[in-house]
């Protein structure tokens, strides 16, 4: 279980880093507090201190035989199958979300949504990228029309603007 311990130590250090970062930002905040005597930096200081303390607590637990009270590895199958990490699936879903971020402003909501849809479906093991892209296009188009025409929420039409006509902005 060396991997488990490494992850727990890493997450504990991550919590400590967030606490330290928060403390560094807090140090720049003004302290004057008027009548209350506590300024806008007081609660941030409390929260930073809390995160640092919790990070240390997590780290101590991780180093002394691991975190306590974790649920049994699995109730359905064996522990190995439950926690085999599929990096490619994770990457497909993440990649889809990043492409969506890149595309939504330029290519528009519909194209970005269809891309996201196809990537996520691929990540979950679908082997039919063309069908997924087509389904994603239909879904994103339906959502786009529903939100822009019925709810007056503006979404970027992007490169499909000539096709979508005045419904888009």
């Amino acid at each position, binding site marked *: 279980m060396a991997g488990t311990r490494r992850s*727990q130590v890493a*997450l504990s250090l991550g*919590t400590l880093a*967030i606490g330290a970062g928060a403390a560094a930002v807090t140090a720049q*905040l*003004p302290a004057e*507090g008027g*009548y*209350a*005597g*506590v*300024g*806008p930096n007081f*609660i*941030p200081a409390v*929260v930073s201190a*809390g995160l640092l303390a*919790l990070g240390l607590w*997590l780290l101590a*637990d991780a180093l002394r035989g691991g*975190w306590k*009270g*974790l*649920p049994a590895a699995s109730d359905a*199958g064996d522990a190995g*199958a*439950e*926690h085999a990490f*599929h990096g490619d*699936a*994770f990457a497909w*879903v*993440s990649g*889809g*979300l990043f492409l*969506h*971020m*890149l595309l*939504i*402003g330029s290519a528009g*909501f519909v194209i970005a*949504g269809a891309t*996201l*849809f196809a990537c*996520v*479906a*691929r*990540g*979950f*093991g*679908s082997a039919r990228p063309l069908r*997924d892209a087509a*389904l994603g296009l239909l879904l*994103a188009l339906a*959502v786009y029309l529903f*939100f822009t025409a019925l*709810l*007056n*929420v503006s*979404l970027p039409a992007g490169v499909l603007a000539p096709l979508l006509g005045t419904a888009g902005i």
Partner: protein
Amino acid sequence: MEAFEALLAGFGVALKPINLLWGFIGVTLGTFVGVLPGVGPALTVAMLLPLTVKLDPTGALILFAGIYYGAMFGGSTTTILLNTPGESASIATALEGNRMAKAGRAGPALATAAIGSFVAGTLATLALTLVAPLVVEAALAFGPAEYFALMVFAFTTVSAVLGGSTVRGLTSLFLGLLLGLVGIDGQTGQTRFAFGVPELLDGIDVVVLAVGLFAVGEALYCAAYTSRRPETLEKLSGSLWMSRADWRRSWPAWLRGAGIGFPFGTIPAGGSEIPTFLSYAAEKKLSRHPQEFGKGAIEGVAGPEAANNAAATGVLVPLLTLGIPTSATAAVLLGAFQNYGIQPGPLLFQSQSELVWGLIASLYVGNVILLVLNLPLIGIWVRVLSIPRPLLYAGILVFATLGAYSLHQSWVDLLTLYVFGLLGFAMRRWDFPVGPAVIGLILGPIAETQFRRALSISQGDAGVFFTQPISATLLALTAVVIVLPWVLRRLAAARTPR
């Protein structure tokens, strides 16, 4: 009596055709999304929030009430047919309901869940009608110090006491509190933790955090760990109707479930998780058929489902009367209120009486809609369950990103969403409860305001929290709930012979 007059006026609002329509749409959408595996009530409400941007507040709140109830019920359908409890509150249902479905008795299991939800939901709404005005009266005496002490108490119980681990619960809470600090400080105008990013000046929207943790985190987790695992969907075969014996065994369980669920919902005990387990244990103990438990005993579905729904209604008592959310779903609802500039609390009952009582009346109506809609439509919900997993998660993420993007029309919110997704992934993998983070985000800024206000009134004397009786009592209670489990463990350890 005053309350009943107000309630009657509330029915006048809730039964307006347009509001009735919103109720129907809310329940249907809530159930539809709630049925989707892996989508719990908090995520359902968060994902459907963008739909309400153009509605008037009353219509929007009625829509939310419907979504809230529908999501609760949809979740139990999924649990019974799929045995993947999306949230801890449905684990008890999964124990018996899924066994019943495996034995070909999915129909009665779904029916007892639906009717039990209706019975318990209606009783709990009645209790809410009676209790809320009393709490409002008491809360009018609360000053900033009392509110702050109450929030500290709520923070402690939802994060440190409940759940598998005190340290992980508190870490989740403090991450939420830190995120709540982002943006412009309401009292001094000081910008905090925004790093010059304009999208962060408004603070972090509860929808982005909830959708990031629940939807993106869940999708990443399921893709990485469970997407290669086959799942079995139980078929809906046989009669949908409950037999005479089913009725006889169900109704006492519904009543007991409602009795257990409502009080637990009203106190900051994390929503439905504890009462559903207590109800399950009670039914197991009281049943004349204890040998059936673990093999599909109908009481084991009827009780916990009733308790779940009653607790969901009970949660609305502190939310509406004090403005304190005690579950992740309630925290998202509070965010929705705030979007409309509505701050729940005792004053709301006076200043916007029509809106509050319209909402409460629509809870009665929502329960009826849930019942008439769900029994006939169960076949459709079952078909929703058979959507292939890849398409399901792809669709969920298209909606999840839409909610975040529509805030500022900016990709920065999408990046924030992804970061929260990574956080949710790690929290899911290592069993950090997510609820405290969402509650911390939304309640933290309110607690800070009350804290500083209390100190302003006392001219900076921190003794104010300990000298005022209500505030001192609440802080003492907080100390007790922290220390008590530790003391009990010590005692138990001392008693066991080594």
